[in-house]
């Protein structure tokens, strides 16, 4: 059995945004599909509890979870063109999402679709609801996806790399739209991304994932300004900066992310970690626990380095490169 996601725990409050950051294969998308119960039932198993609006989704049977999907929790995806049915109109698809959970006539559902399209900033929505997904631009398609996901006013919105396929200006518009809608509806958002810039701009909390495990968890401020995990240091120092020296090489994390079929023993990051020698054998011998940085702190990290050494390394070796 492969543990795609292991021992993961996090929470998002209403109106707040949690950014889940990690490389491909770190378990971000699997996590989000599991929340909606969209993982392959015959091939994947989720243990533990998933609470949405105080109800444990993981303990429910399929028909109960289905009633929550779209209504209490909704999802938008990276590739909006692929995520919409090519043979149904945008309006039809939004109206359908609304009609599943609301006993309304076709006319009312259509009205709701127009209202939602208008809300996400599609010009002339009463005309555009008759369009097919391929007739929309990339940014408009993602707006339409957001309209579809928010049509039933869910408590939780999972956005799985919603801006990865878009160019930077459109990306900024979509993120702003999400922020506005979040304020208006009080939606909790889980933003899945590998773009630290996007998280820095949008999220309240960050969950950093590596090989299916949370390795650092805290507020955006803590995790981005005082990162505690060598992986987080690596990510931050590898970002090019406008103010940086153009001749200086970017620092890369050596090696590649592990395959989940053969996760390295001990800390999964240890074969790529520069600071293993500071700890000794513990890194490859035992899995470090996710512990508060200091007693009572909300900032959690999964690393064998002791607090003092971490602070020294950050101050002397990492911070100068940021």
């Amino acid at each position, binding site marked *: 059995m492969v543990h795609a996601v292991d021992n993961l725990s996090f929470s998002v409050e209403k109106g707040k945004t949690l950014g889940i950051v990690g490389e491909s294969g770190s378990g971000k998308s699997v996590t989000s599909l599991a929340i909606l119960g969209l993982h392959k039932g015959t091939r994947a198993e989720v243990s533990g509890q998933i609470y949405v609006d105080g109800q444990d989704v993981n303990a429910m049977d399929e028909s109960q979870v*289905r009633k929550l999907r*779209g209504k209490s929790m*909704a999802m938008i995806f990276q590739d909006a063109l*692929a*995520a919409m049915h090519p043979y149904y109109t945008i309006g039809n698809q939004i109206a*359908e999402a609304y009609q*599943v959970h609301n006993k309304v006539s076709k006319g009312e559902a259509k009205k709701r679709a127009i209202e939602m399209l208008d809300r996400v900033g599609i010009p002339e929505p009463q005309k555009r609801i008759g369009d097919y997904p391929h007739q929309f631009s990339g940014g408009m398609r993602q707006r339409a996806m957001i309209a579809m996901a928010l049509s039933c006013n869910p408590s939780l919105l999972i956005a799985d790399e919603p801006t990865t396929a878009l160019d930077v200006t459109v990306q900024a518009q979509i993120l702003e739209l999400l922020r506005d809608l979040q304020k208006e509806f009080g939606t909790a958002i889980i933003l899945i991304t590998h773009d630290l810039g996007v998280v820095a701009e949008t999220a309240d909390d960050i969950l950093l994932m590596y090989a299916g495990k949370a390795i650092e968890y805290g507020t955006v401020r803590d995790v981005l300004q005082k990162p505690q995990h060598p992986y987080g240091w690596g990510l931050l120092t590898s970002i090019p900066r406008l103010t940086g020296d153009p001749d200086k090489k970017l620092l890369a994390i050596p090696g590649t992310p592990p395959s989940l079929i053969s996760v390295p023993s001990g800390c999964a990051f240890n074969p790529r970690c520069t600071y293993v020698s500071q700890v000794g054998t513990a890194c490859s011998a035992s899995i470090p626990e996710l512990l508060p940085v200091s007693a009572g702190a909300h900032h959690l990290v999964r690393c064998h380095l002791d607090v003092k050494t971490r602070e020294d390394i950050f101050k002397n070796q990492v911070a100068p490169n940021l």
Partner: protein
Amino acid sequence: MLRYIVKRVTAGTLVLGIVSAIVFSIFYILPSDPARLACGKSCTPELMQRIKVALEIDQPLQVQYGRFIKGIFVGRTYLKGSEAELQCGAPCLGYSYQTDQPVTSLLMDRLPATLSIAAGASVLWLLVGLSSGIVSALRRGTMVDKFSQGVALGAASLQIYFVGLILQFIFVDKLAWLPMPGYTSPFEYPLDWAKQMALPWITLAFLLSAIYSRLTRAGMIEVMSEDYVRTARAKGLLARDVNMKHVLRGAITPIVTVFGLDLGALLGGAVITEYVFNVPGLGKLSTEAVTNLDIPVVTGTVLFAAFFVITANIIVDLVYASLDPKVRLT
């Protein structure tokens, strides 16, 4: 839209012209002489010459072809000026060497039987093929799936003349549940028509259901892994609605295309089926004509079949454009 149709019909007519020219040339090259066949045992050179003139095969090929084409559009007159002058109104495809009947009326006589076979069989194979394909896709990997796809693989490998004869042996000869297959008018004796058509329908549908079942299953399974199906599930739709509204809708377009082309080809004559069950349709007519070197009838049946295939192609393209909004007709 209208411009597109006009364009396609013009192109289709051109293809029909090419088909007719090819058929014409083939028979000209063939080492057979219709006049010699018509002349019989007590043939004299004078009689032979008169027959050639009567059949108008004394003329060069291009003249014959020109008259043939003219006959289709405006009709033609045989043996002009003689007392045996014969008017053949448009669309004239000539007269059968064998029975002296106009080819057009032969085709019209045989069309209902072929239409009956095609209509009944297509309903049957769509019903069986689509439903078994859908069930297989939804129950992928289960015994139901393995059984239905196993049967489909077997059925797709069997031939009409094999299945047909076995069914006929069981249901007509042994059990006597059904009469000998054949054709009666559905408007006069609907029950007899259905009983006589039952075996051709089942035999033809047996093979084609298998193909459609596999096609439907493969299409559904492919669409099931599409992102938009995940979206449909994320909306909270019932599994039934996800499968029927989203998966099937995504998988149906190629099936419609194949169906249109199969039906078009079948309307030209279900040759083997008609031959096996001795149903007087277009397919039977064409095999008879080829055996007897009845050139005008062969040309007529080939053109008729080509007409159906071309028409089916145009209709399929129009239907496809209405099924897939990304397709624009230009």
